[in-house]
């Protein structure tokens, strides 16, 4: 990771400063204000299997300055499962077969099949026609003429998050909050000394939650740059105290400096999640809760004036 030099400059962007707007949830399917998918893709499903119950009818391609984050429960519903399995490529079906436990296999099938539905809707192609490729660190990309569409997926236990956007790198992470975990011991391998000191100053649930907050923010960023924890994450400073706001920092890749935003999406007693996105966030609308049905978790609007911000140092 020699070409990556993390800026130590990091600030918390507090709600009320105009950077973030935390909205009350709009729980209707067209939360982001788009028209229903059926109007864009009429007749797209040749076998007519896609019914009005399909939770992703409202999906359309994100706007150029928008990030959409979908939450997908990974429990098995027989009818939906058959349809989702049919979306998979031969390689994906083989991969599903390699799981030792049916539960793990089913979760993979639901997550991957749903990803194909979402990406297919964005590209206006059938889910089966979506092609993926991976970089040397295993980060998947869409193999398409439409190279602007970016996505990232994370799952933990029975819940997945799928983030999609246009023309900017994104990473998303969700973790089940394991209260049995020795947070400080695990942190010693991947957190900086100051972050470990920060954790050690906390106790009980507060410490555990802070650890997972820090972990998901680091992991989301490292997934966004396509390296996962194969990169050395202790060089990435993140705030762990701040529960509901995001942070912004600069990172240098070779000669170019990019601005990144880190956003906590939702934190419950069971799960913690974060989104990293290239650029500067203008507003966030997030439900703040996880549900047992596929739905839009967050809509993030990015600043269009990114070019003027890139290179500015934040102290």
């Amino acid at each position: 990771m020699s070409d990556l030099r993390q800026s130590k400059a990091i600030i918390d962007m507090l709600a009320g400063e105009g950077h973030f707007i935390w909205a009350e949830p709009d729980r209707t399917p067209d939360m982001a204000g788009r028209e229903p998918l059926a109007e864009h893709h009429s007749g797209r499903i040749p076998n007519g299997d896609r019914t009005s119950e399909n939770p992703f009818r409202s999906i359309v391609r994100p706007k150029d300055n928008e990030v959409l984050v979908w939450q997908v429960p990974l429990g098995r519903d027989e009818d939906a499962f058959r349809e989702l399995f049919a979306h998979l490529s031969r390689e994906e079906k083989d991969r599903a077969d390699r799981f030792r436990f049916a539960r793990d296999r089913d979760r993979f099938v639901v997550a991957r099949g749903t990803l194909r539905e979402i990406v297919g809707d964005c590209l206006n192609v059938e889910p089966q026609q979506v092609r993926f490729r991976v970089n040397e660190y295993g980060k998947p990309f869409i193999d398409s003429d439409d190279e602007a569409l970016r996505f990232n997926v994370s799952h933990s236990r029975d819940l997945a998050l799928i983030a999609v956007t246009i023309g900017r790198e994104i990473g998303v992470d969700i973790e089940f909050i394991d209260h049995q975990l020795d947070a400080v011991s695990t942190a010693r391998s991947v957190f900086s000394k100051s972050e470990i000191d920060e954790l050690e100053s906390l106790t009980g649930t507060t410490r555990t939650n802070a650890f997972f907050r820090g972990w998901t923010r680091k992991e989301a960023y490292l997934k966004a740059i396509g390296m996962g924890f194969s990169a050395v994450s202790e060089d990435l400073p993140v705030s762990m105290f701040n529960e509901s706001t995001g942070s912004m920092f600069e990172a240098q890749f070779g000669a170019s400096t990019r601005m990144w935003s880190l956003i906590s999406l939702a934190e419950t007693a069971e799960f913690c999640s974060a989104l990293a996105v290239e650029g500067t966030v203008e507003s966030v609308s997030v439900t703040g809760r996880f549900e047992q049905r596929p739905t839009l978790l967050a809509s993030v609007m990015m600043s269009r004036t990114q070019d003027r911000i890139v290179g500015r140092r934040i102290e």
Partner: protein
Amino acid sequence: MTREEIKARVLDILAGIAPEAETELLDPETDLREQLDIDSMDYLNFVIALDDEFNAGIPEKDYTKFTTIDSCVRQLETLGRS
């Protein structure tokens, strides 16, 4: 420590990370993350547990090299000789 002894301890540690797994049935050459629902934190804790058990001093840059049972054994053999 023989290769078989290393493997047996690796499987014991893996059973602690994925308690439902019948570790002896796992393919030693296939990525563990493709056989078990192991996420990045599970994986990190697996490597940390290997490091503790074998007192191996696994460098962070090598954390990605423990993805299969066979690669775990090879890495730990190598670290044990160094």
